[in-house]
């Protein structure tokens, strides 16, 4: 998704003529939507599998984005550094208004998720059931898609294209290890994301290293910690449990043997 948004942002810039978050958002949403449609079309009508279809559409869209980016840089003068930042992100150079936009987005995100929580839950776990009881699945999918695209566009400025996907996946994956409940998982993923953001930003202040990658590294460390030490699903606990079970089994076997001998 993050890759597919780039041409939309560039086209929006070409049409509108200056850097504006709202216009970028619309452009990104459009090209993201087109990309999704293309992927579904390819999977449905050819024998190409989904992973290859995603790869095709995303890399071609991103290539187009790069072409447009170089075009813009050459034809519109040198004040387009703002659009270049979309590629790699500069958390440190965010201005106050950017922070305001980010805050508003975060709040909107939380409210939307609170409102539609039950619906999202049903369509995530059992789409057919949701359709059966009359939940407007495609509409909600659209809402979800819109949320994703807005987060991508706004987050791009902070962390850049490449690391955007990491922030989507890693905290959620880490949260998955701690709980079986979607409520907690959503909350935890948010907390993990925030934690790694704060830690990464702080480290980057101390060590003079770009913020984006550090945030990702912290998120990954959180994931590794959860992967190893989470209660129930963590690797260590699984091994300990297995060890205990094995001991139990062995002592049982021993008792049976004794019983036979007697």
């Amino acid at each position, binding site marked *: 998704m993050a890759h597919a948004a780039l041409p939309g942002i560039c086209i929006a810039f070409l049409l509108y003529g200056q850097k504006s978050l709202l216009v970028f958002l619309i452009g990104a949403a459009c090209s993201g939507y087109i990309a999704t449609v293309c992927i579904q079309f390819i999977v449905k*009508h050819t024998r190409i599998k989904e992973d290859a279809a995603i790869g095709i559409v995303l890399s*071609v869209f991103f290539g*187009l984005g790069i072409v447009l980016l170089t075009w813009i840089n050459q034809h519109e003068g040198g004040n387009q550094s703002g659009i270049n930042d979309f590629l790699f992100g500069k958390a440190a150079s965010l201005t106050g208004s950017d922070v305001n936009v980010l805050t508003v987005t975060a709040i909107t995100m939380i409210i939307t998720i609170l409102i539609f929580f039950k619906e999202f839950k049903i369509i995530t776990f059992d789409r057919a059931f949701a359709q059966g009881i009359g939940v407007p699945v495609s509409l909600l999918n659209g809402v979800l898609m819109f949320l994703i695209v807005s987060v991508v566009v706004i987050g791009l400025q902070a962390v850049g294209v490449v690391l955007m996907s990491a922030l989507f996946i890693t905290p959620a994956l880490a949260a998955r290890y701690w709980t079986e409940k979607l409520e907690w998982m959503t909350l935890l993923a948010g907390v993990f994301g925030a934690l790694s953001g704060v830690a990464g930003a702080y480290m980057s202040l101390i060590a003079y290293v770009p913020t984006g990658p550090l945030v990702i590294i912290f998120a990954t460390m959180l994931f590794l910690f959860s992967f190893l030490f989470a209660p129930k699903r963590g690797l260590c606990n699984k091994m300990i449990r297995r060890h205990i079970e094995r001991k139990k089994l062995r002592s049982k076997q021993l008792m049976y043997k004794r019983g036979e001998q007697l």
Partner: protein
Amino acid sequence: MSYTMWILLTAALVGINCGLIGTFLVLRKMSMLSDAISHSVLLGIVGAYMVSHQLQGVSMLIGALLVGLLTTFLVQLLHQKGVQSDAAIGVVFTCLFAIGVVLISLFADRVHLDVEHALMGEIAFVPWDVLEVGGKSIGPKAVWLLGFVLAINIFVIVFAYKELKISSFDSEMAVTLGIPVVFIHYVLMGMLSLTTVASFDSVGAILVVAMLIVPSATAYLWTDRLSVMLICSAMIGVLASMIGYMGATAFNVSISGAIAVATGVIFFVSLWIAPKHGLLRKWLKKSPA
């Protein structure tokens, strides 16, 4: 040879290399791994630089090979322990990439390698970075590197053609036949890493992904035979790099981006007119008139 010819040759070599490896990736449904490895290879390049203090040739290949195999290994490990495979890929490569970027920025004053360069590539500079033997220039370094990797790729594919074929199409049968499927998987990933790093410097990470997946998927529409598909996808790669280069010079835009777009155009055309699996043919069949 002229400036243009060297660029075209480089792009064509990238096309052939990626086309060959990409075919197996598409058939094995592992396209996303190419995205992952193309990013994490950055860490290999940085690591190789920190050890050997140079950015060319063998040390870079070894570094990329190691990190590529590490990526494959970690993804497989997480997958075995119950993480979904696409999520596993996402976590591993973003983390390795992030480490790579951090290392670059820590040593940025000494390394001639910035992230922008790595992502977009600078094929336009290839002809000036020449290899000299006994004071005589014998062509750009990138061309020799790509040629070397191409030789390895062709050698492995010819040598292990049957094994690659069977394990790609029916891995269970391959296991029963006694073919070391896991080993083949790692060999393929090793080849992928080599190809990626050799293409990396001249064309950048995005184009590598486009060149790996799109021509092979296009070839997949044209043919049912693996041997034909390999040749087809290499040829489509070359064709796309020619068209892309011409387009890029005509409009004065990024060469690697234009080549990626060209692969997309070829794919789109093939989608309709491919003889067996094209859409036109399918629709004609459906409505006999």
